[in-house]
């Protein structure tokens, strides 16, 4: 069996950090905690954990919250993966932290098993999409996926398969269920999700940010 994943918890609520540590305790190795942007950036660069569980809103730095932490650790993103963990439903929060470079976004109400699975997935370099994030992507890129007059670049639209995967995630399917539903391997599902994440991060669609500001996921 693999050694437990080395993770850092970044959240400005001490109670939440303690709860998370207790919850994950046996299965991962929590090597550090931080509560502000500056603390987090310093700690992460120093200890280089495999996964950072990152809150979106926190004090410090220039007020950029979780997204700022990711941006400051841009040069170590190869080694350190960020999983955003938030209570916020604000689309702009999601977009900012994902576009900064986080590998996934889950809500704090997620169950322990799912969170551990998400940590594992992120550590492997794949992306973690909650149903809500998938719904958000579908809404932002267009749910139909059947783009007729393709004018934008490759990055600005989803392939039919990616839309299908996103839709199944939004419907509450696990990667395993998606794989058997679409008759593909789990690895392929993960590849699709990672591709969508890349598109979400790199897309030049300026509408994406504006869209996120105007809209709220519920």
């Amino acid at each position, binding site marked *: 069996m693999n050694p437990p994943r080395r993770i850092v918890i970044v959240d400005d609520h001490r109670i939440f950090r303690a709860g998370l540590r207790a919850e994950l305790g046996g299965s991962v190795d929590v090597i550090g905690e931080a509560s502000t942007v500056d603390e987090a950036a310093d700690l992460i660069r120093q200890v280089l954990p495999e996964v950072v569980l990152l809150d979106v809103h926190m004090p410090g730095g220039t007020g950029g919250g979780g997204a700022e932490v990711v941006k400051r650790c841009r040069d170590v993103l190869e080694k350190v993966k960020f999983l955003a963990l938030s209570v916020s*439903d*604000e689309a702009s929060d999601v977009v900012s932290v994902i576009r900064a470079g986080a590998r996934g976004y889950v809500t704090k109400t997620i169950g322990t098993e799912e969170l551990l699975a998400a940590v594992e997935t992120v550590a492997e370099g794949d992306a973690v999409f909650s*149903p*809500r994030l*998938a*719904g958000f992507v*579908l*809404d*932002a*890129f*267009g*749910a*139909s996926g059947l*783009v007729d*007059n*393709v*004018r*934008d670049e490759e990055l*600005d*639209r989803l392939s039919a398969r990616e839309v299908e995967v996103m*839709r199944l995630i*939004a*419907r*509450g*399917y696990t990667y395993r*269920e998606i794989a058997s539903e679409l008759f593909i391997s789990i690895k392929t599902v993960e590849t699709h999700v990672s591709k969508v994440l890349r598109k979400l991060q790199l897309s030049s669609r300026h*509408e994406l940010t504006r*869209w996120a500001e*105007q*809209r*709220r*996921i*519920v």
Partner: protein
Amino acid sequence: MTTPARDPVPHRPPLRRAVGTPIAGVCLGLSRHLGISVPVVRVAFILLTLAGGVGLLLYCWLWVFAPTEKEPTGTAGGRGLSGPALADQEPRPQDNLAGGSSARLRRTLDTLTSSPEILLGGVLVSVGALMLAQLLGVGIDWRLVVVPAVALGGVLLTWSQWDRIYSAQEPPASGQRRAALWQVSLGACLVLVAMLIIAGGVVGPGELIAGITVGGILLAGLALVLAPWLIKLYRTSQVERERAAAEAERADIAAHLHDSVLQTLAMIQKQKSDPSEVERLARGQERQLRAWLYRQNAQATGTLKDQILAVAAELEEQHAVPVEVIAVGHSHQSQHEPLVAAAREAILNAVRHAGPASVYVESTDIEDAVFVRDRGPGFDPHAIAEDRMGVRESIIGRMNRSGGRATIRSGPAGTEVQLIMPLTPRQTGHPPADPVPPHDSERQQQ
């Protein structure tokens, strides 16, 4: 009656200009400060004005340096004073008005001097008198009369506008703002013209032009030096204003949290022996707070999304089982009754028999779809007994009757009910019934 004058240490209210007076409130403020009746102060000012304009100068001086009642002082915040600082001093000048013929005289004076019309009339009458005097052969240098009058008019116009800017609580409408701008510029022009006339009396026209040029250059230099400071001043005031707005918002949030969240937390502490009740309370509160935080701008438009959300919230509340709703797109149909009813039945089945449910609502250009997924033990859809009206009638039958279709997939890993309602051709041709969502146009651009 103990008069304030006899008091060994007379307690004087601070000198602040009154609000809501015809010109600037200097007289009223001064009368409150000194404890003399208003008309007396006014008459004194008029007499001083007639005596070579001293009264006017004094009036302007006080206008500039005495703050109005509404302007916050440095300590007002600390004292918790939010209203007019002198409200309780109001009746004081009236005390001195009581009784006797002097009171009547004062009252007459008050009515005479408090009305701007009468003051204006007085000014016009004196102008007329001057003209008459000139007709009768008295030599009058009009420049001595007109120039100060023009300057005074300009000053009055601009200064009264400053007062209004400070007393305004909320930002004025754009029309008002333009009017204010016009008023200030007009006043400035008047003052400038008066200055030029004065300067023209001292030096010749050629020198005047050269002087203006030099003055302009000097001013530009001065502006260059002072610019950073002025900009900083402006920014600071902006920041101040934003901070006040943020503070107001914070107070609003605090009030809301107190009304809802703290109450719920108190209830949770009382119910701590009943886990399901605690969970129900927490879920309900979470949903309420989320709705308040993230959807306060979204009006309940009765869209498909809103209706499904409402149904989910209701069932979640009733059965103490979380129901997560994710909605994508905006429906192009206006009637969702069969779809929402069927979805309700499906969610109800899930929370009753299987536990937490996730609902996915998707609206595309061709159909509205609702997927209700749970992770219960599942059942065989083909083996549904004829009398199980819930599934057969309320979900499948209802969807089929209204032109849609329902599919139930069930297995050991859970059940998914798929409800699909195609757009009727008649409706696809029409623009969406919902207010056009921002991303619809984006989608068409793709």
